[in-house]
């Protein structure tokens, strides 16, 4: 009978052999399943562009003027002609100074810390009905246009793999990348923690008319 311990033995033994011969063989792992992808296969799927340094950005370029046309054709229906948003689709422009307010508007201009991330996202996920279909130059052009709408780059800006990583985004320095949690301390008092008469209900969902049905057919409540 084949037990988990046997797997460990097989993997361990093969691992030693393969690690010694990997440089020579170069294509087989300890279990040997699957195959090495071809360079073309890797290139076809290796679409990511890294936000902070632009690693992975391809050759090509696009300017603001070209971006204006592509945006009108591909993006304006959801994001508005000038990136102001349409219906409940995201705004791409504006929101400056709102992040500490009551209604923050996190946009490319007010929130995004890296310009390259914009290229990467447009390239991989937009336009929404037909993602990853835009030519590389059009993705560069759209990136240039959206950055110019946000007054981050001048009207004659040309986006390419060298210029995009150098763009300093307004909100860049507002991010921390280490998690400070736990950030609350709740002492688990068990009895007479406070006078129950002092409790006040400060908000209630009762009567707010925001809750869809939880029985019967699915609800189609409209945006409020």
């Amino acid at each position: 009978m084949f037990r988990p311990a046997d797997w460990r033995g097989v993997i361990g033994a093969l691992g030693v052999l393969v690690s010694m011969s990997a440089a020579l063989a170069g294509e087989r792992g300890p279990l040997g399943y699957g195959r090495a992808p071809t360079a073309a296969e890797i290139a076809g799927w290796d679409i990511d562009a890294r936000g902070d340094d632009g690693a992975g950005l391809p050759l090509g370029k696009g300017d603001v003027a070209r971006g204006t046309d592509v945006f009108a054709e591909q993006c304006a229906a959801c994001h508005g002609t000038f990136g102001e948003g349409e219906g409940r689709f995201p705004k791409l422009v504006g929101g400056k100074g709102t992040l500490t307010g009551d209604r923050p508007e996190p946009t490319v201009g007010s929130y995004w810390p890296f310009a390259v991330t914009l290229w990467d996202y447009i390239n991989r996920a937009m336009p929404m009905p037909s993602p990853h279909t835009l030519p590389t130059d059009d993705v560069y052009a759209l990136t240039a246009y959206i950055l110019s709408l946000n007054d981050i780059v001048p009207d004659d800006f040309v986006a390419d793999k060298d210029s995009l990583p150098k763009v300093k985004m307004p909100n860049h320095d507002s991010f921390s990348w280490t998690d400070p949690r736990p950030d609350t301390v709740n002492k688990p008092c068990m009895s007479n923690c406070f006078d129950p008469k002092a409790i006040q209900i400060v908000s209630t969902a009762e009567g707010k008319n925001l809750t869809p049905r939880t029985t019967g057919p699915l609800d189609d409540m409209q945006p409020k």
Partner: protein
Amino acid sequence: MTATAGDEESSGAVRVVGRRSLLRASGALAASMLVRGGASAEGAAPPADHPWSQSIGAGVVDRPYGKPADAEAGVIRRNVPWLTAGTESSISFSPLQDLHGIITPNGLFFERYHAGRPDVEASQHRLMIHGLVERPLILTMKDILRFPSTSRIHFIECPANGGMEWRAAQLNSLQFTHGMISCAEWTGVKLSTLLGEVGLKKEAKWALVEGADGAHMTRSLPLEKCLDDCLVVYAQNSEALRPEQGYPLRLVVPGWEGNVSIKWLRRIKVGDKPWYTREETSKYTDLMPDGKSRGFTWAIDAKSVIAFPCPEKPLGGPGLYEIRGLAWSGAGKVKEVHVSTDGGANWRKAELKEPVLSKALTRFTLPWRWDGGPALLESRVIDETGYVQPTISQLRKIRGTNSVYHNNSIQTWQVKADGSIFDVQTG
């Protein structure tokens, strides 16, 4: 002569036999008797037979896959239509109010899409692993099924679960305040096994994981987590993943926010730094009151909620009830759950129901005699690290009301004298 109880029963039996003989003797009489039998069964079942007890049922494979009882047809995932522009980039909620265990049925597991649900052809699906590895690899589903397999039970929670409640109590429903969580048994390959197969280069520190959906959804993950407990899975609760959950292959990152458990997984690229993708810069980051933002807040903090009673399941009148709920922590096991019926002034320790598993939903119960007066029900979990679930006020003091994600605060249900239940916040 005094008849014994036994005599009465046997004479009753004789009468039943006699009635059955009559039924056989006359079709018209039989029909009228059946109608009468059905009517008399209403309201007081025993000892009458219902129609389903007096007929033969459907055979096996009448429903070859199976479905819930007709009366349970309303137990379904639901969405909040006003929350998003459309349903393709949206979320549905699991009906926690109608579930009785820690395992979410596959058809009720909450959904989150960033570009709609793709229907992937498994025979054409490939997983590629490349980047800072010794031996780049491309795997078919047949290849993946050959690897040594592992099964584990874990919850997946969207960090936006409870996000609509940061400012105030808004949704009068357990399904909508807490339903962005589900829990399943996952079967697949340890990610560490796959990474062992490709061999990591010494500069390797991060992995980019990418889906085959239209969003080509990507997240960066530190390699320590990948090598610790991540699973690349093809099965959920014993059956193949459903398309809604990433068929044929997804990542499961135990205890971390759901969006990093990439569905329709097609690519893992190993690198030396994070990628700062759109999802980890503009979306799944936490905006603090001073305008600063926290990125890479992956872990799910300990959280609990009372599932009975709740707005969808009111109380039927004074008497003894069992308060029931769910607790979980991304940091490991649930250690204790406390329940209060007076808004947090006094607490009692609830009973934890086995199994108590790491990074899985845990059931808790507490008997409660409701006197018919107003009450405020709350639950509070402590996990094995000693972390105590906070109140919403404690969270707001640190994080304000704009952080959207990771609202793991204590939930308060208001019980009114008529037994109805409302979502409230106290101060």
